[in-house]
């Protein structure tokens, strides 16, 4: 019964792998589903860029960004020369004076030499300079025509750094209403926020940091409030706190990620962690319920939707849907309502039965998500260009909709949705092009078209499903409304699909069908495949004698030239011809020869052979993952044909070749290096393995002319085996 359990567990693991293998464990799609504030809007232009932009406009684009940067942030006269010259030419004394004060400020604000430590005299000088800046900048606030707010900011800053808190606050109180909203005012207010926080007006400071999007300062403010106990403490202190959307969003997403990461954890560790997670989620749900009933918080929808999300994480999907409906009826801002809608889509997709009626809902929500994607600015990260709503799309489609539709037997719908999300997010929105290697990536196997969620799905699917999918996206009239909509976004290159389908038939050894697709693929397309440089290798050179032909084969290992023929198509033709020859041959010797040549082709095109690129789009030292991914048995087929050849022709010449070939294809070498209990190297022998058997059978033939002609006397591995065998038999005799 153990083998049944093993198979079930393996299938489960494989399914789990397929369901969630599409994305990494810690991508934004897995980490940021719950969104009541746009975390990406906090990544904006720095203050420095805003300063430069202001002065660029002030100087009517006469100075470059670099010149302005040097002028505004440098310390000596030379660095601000261009700017001061401009201001002099335009007789702008006010700005000229401002820039000179700025230079004084820069001189005392930062020191390039870290080894310098201020002496007492330096400290006195700094204070004097700050006080001078305070005096002069304050004087100019009301007099400056164009730079009033900047003088004000300088004065506030000088007051702060000279320890003149009273003056700093007076400047704020006097002028803050005079100046419009903007980054200058925000910078000035930042100094007040520092005082507020220190004085215990923590909520006032948090409100400020939340408003300006200073996430770093905000997180520092509530650094002790992370987690449920922190949220509870904050609620007790300030039920209306501006920090709750940030706190709760971070909290919910971290719980979500922990819950998801359990799927990747070792089984032994899962239970205790899962129990702790569930207990905490329940504790939060209870607390949220109390908070809502006390009616003190501004947005009860925030709390209810967080509680509903935890219900979903606990697998209580119906409860989650009900609570989301309740949350939707409560007070919340627009983003909170959008968040509820996105979560509802996520939860429903986890449990839907994927009938036609559900398609209508999916279609409607996808339209909505695409509109949201278009409305929100994108940002670039390590993965691609993205936004919160692209993350939502990926999460819902890759983790729920695709597996759901697959389970319901609707491959084309699943593939169309996957294709849509991949094409829209990773290609269109990221300004990528098909057939191109993304900049900075490894040239080998990282071409976009063969390393994405859609490709993973198609590469492992039944070929008939892929044919149906290709037919759908070429003629969307045949699909459902949902499929039509999704397919309208999908990549629909006929060359891509012909090549892919042809390769899939090739793996299944259906050479005729493979041919009908491959012959339609132009050489220009073949030459742009990510594996194209590996397609120049010789498939007819026997894999097991490659060691004798290194010189000849060396130049063809990696060739970046354009292909002059389609090697996969040529392979099909060769196989078909040989199969025909085998079928029509009347004598065993000819049949044996055909068998041997067929075996050569199978071996070379297998994962072990030189021409692995005929059947695969990537290669890994960990061959098992690629082999299972790509459903081919070429190595085993080669062995079968070799055995057939061996049986048909008993001549020494044939037997030597076949046995040596079988030995080379064996997955169990006769000896290998292992380690003893003290981690010292030792040889491990497999005398019962297929290689040992083949070598054994070769032993009596070691003196035959065929053995010499094949050059087997130069094979060290074989010689070592013979030596060992000789010693062994000698010992046996004695």
């Amino acid at each position, binding site marked *: 019964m153990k083998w049944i359990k093993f198979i079930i567990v393996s299938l489960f693991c494989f399914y789990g792998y397929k369901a969630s293998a599409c994305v990494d464990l810690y991508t934004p799609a897995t980490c940021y589903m719950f969104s009541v504030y746009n975390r990406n809007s906090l990544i904006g232009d720095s203050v420095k860029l805003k300063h430069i932009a202001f002065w660029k406009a002030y100087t009517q684009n006469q100075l470059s960004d670099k010149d302005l940067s040097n002028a505004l942030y440098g310390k000596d006269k030379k660095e601000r020369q261009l700017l001061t010259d401009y201001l002099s030419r335009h007789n702008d004394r006010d700005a000229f004076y401002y820039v000179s004060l700025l230079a004084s400020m820069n001189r005392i604000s930062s020191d390039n030499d870290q080894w310098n430590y*201020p002496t007492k005299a330096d400290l006195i000088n700094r204070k004097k300079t700050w006080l001078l800046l305070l005096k002069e900048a304050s004087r100019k606030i009301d007099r400056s025509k164009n730079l009033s707010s900047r003088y004000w900011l300088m004065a506030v800053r000088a007051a702060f750094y000279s320890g003149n808190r009273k003056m700093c606050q007076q400047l704020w109180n006097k002028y803050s209403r005079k100046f419009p909203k903007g980054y200058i005012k925000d910078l000035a207010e930042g100094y007040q926020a520092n005082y507020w926080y220190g004085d215990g007006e923590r909520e006032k400071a948090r409100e400020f940091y939340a408003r300006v999007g200073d996430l770093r300062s905000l997180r520092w403010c509530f650094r002790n409030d*992370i987690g*449920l*106990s922190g949220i509870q403490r904050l609620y007790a202190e300030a039920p209306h706190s501006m920090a709750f959307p940030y706190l709760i969003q971070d909290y919910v997403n971290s719980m979500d990620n*922990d819950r998801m*990461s359990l799927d990747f954890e070792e089984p032994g*560790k899962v239970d*205790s962690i899962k129990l702790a997670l569930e207990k905490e989620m329940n504790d939060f749900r209870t607390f949220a319920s109390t908070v809502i009933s006390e009616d003190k918080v501004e947005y009860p929808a925030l709390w209810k939707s967080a509680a509903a999300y935890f219900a979903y994480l606990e697998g209580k999907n119906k409860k989650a849907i009900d609570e989301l409906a309740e949350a939707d009826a409560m007070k919340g801002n627009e983003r909170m309502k959008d968040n509820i809608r996105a979560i509802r889509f996520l939860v429903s997709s986890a449990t839907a039965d994927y009938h036609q009626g559900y398609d209508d809902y999916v279609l409607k929500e996808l339209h909505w998500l695409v509109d949201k994607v278009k409305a929100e600015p994108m940002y670039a990260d390590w993965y691609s260009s993205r936004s919160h709503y692209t993350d939502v799309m990926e999460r819902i489609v890759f983790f729920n909709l695709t597996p759901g539709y697959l389970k319901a037997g609707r491959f084309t719908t699943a593939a169309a949705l996957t294709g849509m999300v991949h094409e829209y997010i990773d290609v269109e929105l990221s300004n990528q092009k098909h057939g191109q290697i993304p900049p900075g990536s490894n040239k080998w196997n990282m071409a976009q078209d063969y390393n994405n969620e859609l490709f993973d799905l198609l590469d492992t699917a039944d070929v008939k499903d892929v044919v149906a999918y290709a037919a759908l996206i070429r003629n969307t009239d045949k699909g459902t409304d949902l499929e039509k909509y999704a397919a309208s976004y999908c990549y629909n290159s006929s060359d891509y699909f012909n090549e892919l389908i042809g390769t899939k038939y090739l793996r299944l050894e259906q050479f005729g069908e493979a041919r009908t697709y491959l012959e339609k693929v132009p050489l220009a397309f073949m030459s742009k495949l990510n594996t194209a440089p590996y397609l120049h290798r010789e498939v007819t050179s026997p894999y097991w004698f490659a060691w004798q032909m290194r010189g000849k084969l060396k130049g063809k290992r990696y060739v970046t030239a354009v292909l002059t023929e389609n090697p996969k198509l040529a392979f099909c033709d060769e196989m078909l011809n040989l199969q025909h020859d085998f079928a029509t041959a009347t004598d065993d010797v000819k049949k044996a020869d055909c068998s041997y040549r067929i075996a050569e082709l199978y071996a070379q095109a297998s994962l072990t052979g030189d021409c692995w690129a005929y059947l695969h789009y990537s290669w890994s030292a960990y061959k098992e993952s690629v082999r299972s991914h790509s459903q081919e048995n070429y190595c085993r087929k080669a062995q079968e044909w070799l055995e057939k050849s061996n049986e048909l022709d008993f001549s020494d010449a044939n037997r030597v070749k076949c046995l040596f070939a079988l030995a080379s294809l064996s997955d169990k070498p006769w000896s290998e290096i292992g380690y003893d209990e003290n981690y010292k190297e030792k040889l491990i022998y497999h005398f019962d393995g297929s290689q040992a058997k083949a070598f054994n059978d070769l032993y009596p033939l070691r003196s035959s002319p065929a053995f010499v002609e094949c050059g087997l006397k130069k094979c060290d591995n074989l010689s070592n085996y013979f030596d060992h065998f000789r010693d062994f038999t000698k010992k046996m005799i004695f």
Partner: protein
Amino acid sequence: MKNLLFCVFCLSLFSCTGHYDKVLPDPAPSVYFWRTVFRLDPAEMKFLRIHGVKKMYVRFFDVEPDGRQQPMPVGTIRFVTPVPKDIKVIPVVYVEHTCLQHVADLAEKIVKRVSTMAETNNLSINELQIDCDWTISTQKEYFDLLRKIRTMLAEKGTYLLSTTIRLHQLSAEKPPVDYGVLMCYNTGNLRDYQAGNSILSEKDVRPYLSQLRKYSLPLCVAYPVFDWKLLFERGQFRAILREADLSDPTLYRRKASHLYQVVRTHSLASPDPESFGLMLRVGDEVKVDEVTASDILHIQSLIEEERPEIHRQVVIYSLNSPDINKIKPYEMDQIYHR
């Protein structure tokens, strides 16, 4: 003749202890201060008072390589409250051993900076300590640095120069300084998940005891009162945790007496405003190493067998409220040999 021999014997005894006194004037209960903000709370002030602490070895800054591999001062201390008047401050500078490749002007920079810091913060100093985990391969450069520092200090007046001595350095040549502080802490490998107590362990100290007797540099000794929580991810060391409330069951589960498992991914706040903190993930483990008074007293007894005079001055690492309060006052007096 017998009287003469007796006199010679007494004189030699006297010269041994007298030599020690000459090198280490006023050996006294001492502490290390290793924080970046000099501010003493009432508990720390009380500690200094009741144990008669007269010397404070204060870390002024570290020297580490920057992005261009140039030695730079980092973590410079900020004096917020004044040092108690009756306590002598001895600046300590930790030098990362990779900086020893740039000795040329490093000595000058260190001495100049320490002097400026002392002057700006109204500290009167006549001693400097250098801390470095040097090995045989960096010994030459380190000793060169010490010699240069010593020369520069001599130009300023009468200065003592000391260095920290780690247990493994007892087998090496003695550095060109006036005395050393034997670091009897961090004796094990904190990165080793399987190791016992990495702060102080007899198993780690014992192999070096025989070298202690032969080591000719005058020594005093420093003992730890801190504990630490070591974060491991799948058996690999990741970080020392400064703030982690292991009693929080929503975050940690106790697996063994000194081992906890993280049950919720969370961040630990960092005092560094540039940092969002350290992320602890579900499944990570926290190993707690701690030291008791009896652990210290036991090690002291072993060391004393080899080097009786070493405890004329004991330095506690380090002055920090949570740590010093773990040890009872009478136990601390025993450690201080009062």
